[in-house]
């Protein structure tokens, strides 16, 4: 493989919403910015062809006082005490500036001519997560804005590990997903924005592996890289699940304007009895496992029933689906002659993943000097990704400007070790494909760190996972660079899975949809605390920390 060395002030790993916003801001500050993207930033990540809603506080819409909105933020109320008040406050205060920026760049943030927050809403209880906007072309626009600020975007390279010397993180190593090459990135600051963690658990149709609620190109590699570099991760044990049409897996239930009903047409939740664009039916947000539980209990299926929707709301919903990246779903409905004004769609609970991720603050700072993170590295959503991405870029650029960091000892050995791994995976003739190893990984996650966990299950599963990991490093093979990309994803997923197991062993309680059969109660001592996990002496070490 040929070797290329690229130097930058700021390296951004992953060119999704957060990565491009970080790039835009860092570029604006005059630093040399490189974005390394696994696919093509024009259409990559969870915002490739649109997103659902943009979380923001708009003074002229929400009223002049921000304080009550901070406590109503989904980030405050979300499961597992995920964010500090300071984080939410900073994010919301900046949000309207970012919304206006996006609008000025040509991403229509008030496409109906006024600010409009609909869906994901409990009647009489508006929240902040619901600005409807037209995001279908957000990625080409953000790519253009990044390039306009001198950002260099390198597409089709998968970064799989960070480089660090005695002074901290100093770059990363990647390989081409098409070209046979190794790329060594040397940088003063590194921003991780690799997105959601998919393919850790089996999807809704395990035999059709890539049918996932979230994009299967994002596999939590940032989490694995950050962990290995020594950064702190948070709440890796907390499960994350969405719901949507069965079996066409796709997030976006907040855009459906209907009523969640059982097979006898009875509404399942208390919120709505007829389709209403203002609300959607928030029972699917609050109780995403509902669809699966009802099936298991023999009380399913459960449907999204849009019958009775007004023509105006129907058009609005179709527009919403198209702008959150669901045009293929619409085409499928049309091709199959499914008319949601007449037909109810069965909904299902989608795959498990982890709600946790890299611990980063409102400045995008992680626990390691020179390492930043944003977006779905830990519960971003499009609004969070855009806003904290901007802050991460700002701070990464300032750090790079102040840095006197010159790469010292130890990096050459790291590079050689990683190159040897790539060579072995590509050259070994007999071994296991990434699909085979991925099947083994997802089944152990499902069976031992799945919906219901316990000490005995977790200990047994963890032993098996670690044996599989060791064997996988020896036997995994790739016949081309595309397969090599998937091999590296799977190997990184083993580390993410490891952290899920270890963090689950730490959380000895049952809280929301995190269930420990051996601790079937909420431990109030853990209120307002999070599980932190980081590498100590080569092993994951967990501890509780007060979050607010």
């Amino acid at each position: 493989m040929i070797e290329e060395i690229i130097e930058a002030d700021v390296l951004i790993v992953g060119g999704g919403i957060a990565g491009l916003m970080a790039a835009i801001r860092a570029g604006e500050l005059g630093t040399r910015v490189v974005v390394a993207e696994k696919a093509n930033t024009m259409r990559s990540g969870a915002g490739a062809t649109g997103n659902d809603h943009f979380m923001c506080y708009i003074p002229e819409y929400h009223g002049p006082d921000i304080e009550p909105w901070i406590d109503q933020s989904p980030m405050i109320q979300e499961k597992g005490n995920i964010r500090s008040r300071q984080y939410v406050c900073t994010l919301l205060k900046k949000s309207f500036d970012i919304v206006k920026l996006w609008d000025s760049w040509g991403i229509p943030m008030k496409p109906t001519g006024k600010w409009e927050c609909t869906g994901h809403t409990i009647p009489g209880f508006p929240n902040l997560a619901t600005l409807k906007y037209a995001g279908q072309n957000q990625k080409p626009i953000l790519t253009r804005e990044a390039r306009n600020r001198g950002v260099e975007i390198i597409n089709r390279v998968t970064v799989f590990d960070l480089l660090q010397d005695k002074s901290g993180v100093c770059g990363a190593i990647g390989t081409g997903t098409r070209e046979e090459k190794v790329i060594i990135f040397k940088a003063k600051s590194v921003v991780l924005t690799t997105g959601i963690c998919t393919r850790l658990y089996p999807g809704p149709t395990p035999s059709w592996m890539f049918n996932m609620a979230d994009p299967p190109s994002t596999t939590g590699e940032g989490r694995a890289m950050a962990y290995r570099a020594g950064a702190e991760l948070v709440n890796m044990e907390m499960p994350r699940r969405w719901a949507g049409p069965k079996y066409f897996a796709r997030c976006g239930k907040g855009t459906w304007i209907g009523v969640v009903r059982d097979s006898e047409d009875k509404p399942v939740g208390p919120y709505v009895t007829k389709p209403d664009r203002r609300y959607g039916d928030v029972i699917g947000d609050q109780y995403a496992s509902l669809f699966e539980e009802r099936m298991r209990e023999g009380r399913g299926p459960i449907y999204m029933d849009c019958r009775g929707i007004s023509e105006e709301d129907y058009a609005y919903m179709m527009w919403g689906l198209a702008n959150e990246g669901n045009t293929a779903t619409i085409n499928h409905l049309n091709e199959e002659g499914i008319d949601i004004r007449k037909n109810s769609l069965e909904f299902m609970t989608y795959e498990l993943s982890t709600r946790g991720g890299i611990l980063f603050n409102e400045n995008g700072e992680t626990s390691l000097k020179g390492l930043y993170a944003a977006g779905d590295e830990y519960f971003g959503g499009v609004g969070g990704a855009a806003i904290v991405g901007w802050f991460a870029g700002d701070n990464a650029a300032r750090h790079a400007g102040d840095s006197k960091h010159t790469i010292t000892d130890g990096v050459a050995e790291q590079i050689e070790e990683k190159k040897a791994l790539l060579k072995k995976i590509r050259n070994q003739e007999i071994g296991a494909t990434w699909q085979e190893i991925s099947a083994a990984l997802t089944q152990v996650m499902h069976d031992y760190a799945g919906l219901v966990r316990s000490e005995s299950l977790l200990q047994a599963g963890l032993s098996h996972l670690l044996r599989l990991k060791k064997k996988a490093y020896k036997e995994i093979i790739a016949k081309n660079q595309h397969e090599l990309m998937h091999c590296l994803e799977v190997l990184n997923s083993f580390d993410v899975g490891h952290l899920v197991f270890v963090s689950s062993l730490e959380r000895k309680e049952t809280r929301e949809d995190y269930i420990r059969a051996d601790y079937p109660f909420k431990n109030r001592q853990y209120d307002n605390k999070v599980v932190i996990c980081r590498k100590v002496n080569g092993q994951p070490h967990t501890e509780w920390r007060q979050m607010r």
Partner: protein
Amino acid sequence: MPPVIEKKACTACGVCVSICPQDVFWGSERKQIPVVSYPEECWHCNACVLDCPVEGAIRLRIPFPAQICYK
């Protein structure tokens, strides 16, 4: 298998090959009609359909396991 290219309509411009997030067109050659090397890795994001300059030159075929259930 998704996506499906209408060879008579395709101008081999390469846009779909360039932008596919899953790189299902891996191995396609420049100025040639794209090959769908990894159809099972398609996520049906529809980017190739949205960005194709020729209407009808590419479409997605939704695989059997992903067919929506309804009543």
